[in-house]
């Protein structure tokens, strides 16, 4: 990378042209920072991160489809992020996901410089994986409405109602939705914590199932059972998992 010349590459992500103009201008005073790309939405941002490998990202929170938090969850790298937003209610959450700083619009020069200094000192630092942080930063008592998955630079949104089941695969979970499987870098426990426990059940060490999809349960072997989904998929149900499943199904009756 350009680190030999002590230059940093930055991305500016904001859905408003004029908001990007402000950041671009403030960066003019810093020739050591090169603007690699400007993105008008989260999809572009995810792609630009893969293409340009920036050292620093200025990230708006409120954007169509993918919010700044979604983007952060998807890029899952050690890039320092400075959030830029007109909303102060996300500040706490921003620091929970280890954002370098949180700038409020309208952005002033002094505040901007301070954020930039902090960011520079953090470049190259190892940070906790963003995808795990995003889960902890979720507001309490609020469950995900949709999941964001990245396949290469392609981003897919899966509304939780369309998630059939999830299967643990090493450091990933495979999300089964509408006949397709999407890999997401997350632990199954992390995913379980984000889902409404009244709609999704951990039926097995490696499986979470959407309660709506369970057609019937059949005995299988000595201590375990099988959950048969509406589309015929067969998932293993552990003893503990059966207990959880049964109590939820009983509640629904």
């Amino acid at each position: 990378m350009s680190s030999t010349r002590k230059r940093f590459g930055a991305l500016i992500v904001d859905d408003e042209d004029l908001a990007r103009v402000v950041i671009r201008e403030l960066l003019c005073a810093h020739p050591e920072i090169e603007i690699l790309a400007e993105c008008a939405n989260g999809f572009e941002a995810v792609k630009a991160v893969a293409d340009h490998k920036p050292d620093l990202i200025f990230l708006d929170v409120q954007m169509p489809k993918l919010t700044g938090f979604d983007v952060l969850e998807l890029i899952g790298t050690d890039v320092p992020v400075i959030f830029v937003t007109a909303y102060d209610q996300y500040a706490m959450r921003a620091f929970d996901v280890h954002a370098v700083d949180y700038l409020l619009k309208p952005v002033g020069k002094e505040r901007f410089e301070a954020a930039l200094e902090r960011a520079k000192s953090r470049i190259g630092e190892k940070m906790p994986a963003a995808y795990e942080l995003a889960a902890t930063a979720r507001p309490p008592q609020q469950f995900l409405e949709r999941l964001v998955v990245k396949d290469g630079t392609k981003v897919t949104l899966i509304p939780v109602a369309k998630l059939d089941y999830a299967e643990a695969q090493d450091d990933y979970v495979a999300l089964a939705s509408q006949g397709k499987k999407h890999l997401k870098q997350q632990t199954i426990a992390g995913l379980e914590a984000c889902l409404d426990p009244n709609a999704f059940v951990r039926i097995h060490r490696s499986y979470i199932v959407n309660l709506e999809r369970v057609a019937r349960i059949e005995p299988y072997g000595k201590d375990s059972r099988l959950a048969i989904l509406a589309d015929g998929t067969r998932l293993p149900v552990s003893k503990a998992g059966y207990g959880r499943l049964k109590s939820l199904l009983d509640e629904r009756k």
Partner: protein
Amino acid sequence: MHPLLTRARFGLYLLAWVPLVAILIYVLGASGNMGWAESAGLLFPLCGIYAAVCLAAWYPVKSAPLETTSVPVLLSTHLVAAALLTLLWIQLAKGLAYVLSRVPEFSKIQEHLAPQLPILFGAGFLLYLLSVSYHYVILSLEASREAEARVMETNVLAREAELKALKAQVNPHFLFNSLNSISALTSVDPGKAREMCILLADFLRMTLGLGEKNIIPLAEELNLLDRFLAIEKVRFGARLRVEEDIQEESRAILVPPLVLQPLVENAVVHGIANLTEGGCIKVSAQAQDGRLFLTVENSFDPEATSTRRNGMGLVNVRRRLEARYGSEANIQVNAAEDHFRVELSLPAETGDAPK
């Protein structure tokens, strides 16, 4: 202030004494040696004075309200007061009898009165107690009326405050984002920055001013809307497209202020802002058969997570329409596939907008 010292109440109070005096005259005249004339001659002036004196019952009544006074205190207060006033009553009766005895027709009145004094004593006592209870009735009437008035007043104040607060809502994020746009424009396009400052100033002045008014011509609301949309167009650029279909006759119709703006703001914040490619907002106003139909329609992303899709703006407009028109106004919200539509229907009022 004594509650009986209004003309109507004092009249009523005196009127209440008339039958009592009549009964007393009958009692004194029918028993013993006092004649009707003597009895009436003595009792009319005596009761007249005593009626005035009994107004003093107000003070012990006020100092010993029924709700908060224990029975012994209540009894002792009034019995002592009654005893004192009755003694005064007897002395008055004797004095009057003395004066009357100067008149030849009533020369024997003092002798005739003496045996009747116990009856008179009892009567004085009772009259005072009657006056006390009358005052208690007045007091509780007054208290309940006051409580009622207070409740009504607080209700009215609360509602006014609420309506005022609802009207004067300027979304702070709208302000911050607009200021950020201006800040960007100052170097890119200073002329546009100035224009934007003026738009924003106009919008704020109008919004704050409207908080004071109860009703405005639709044209004024549309003016405000133009400012708002012009500002948002600077922010969103080509992503925000607006179509207006305003029937000319509808412009003069009176509407509560800020009845459209919150809906259009919703359309921007929850509709256009969530669309990568932006979308269109349609505003229409039609007057027909004495009713005004207002519609705000926008494209929106059905997958957007925003849980506040029908945010405070809609609740706010709904409540204000209810406050003014009751069941005469009507709001319909339709969320089709990728279209959000709010329809208002309200009575078409015309005339001069009151201040």
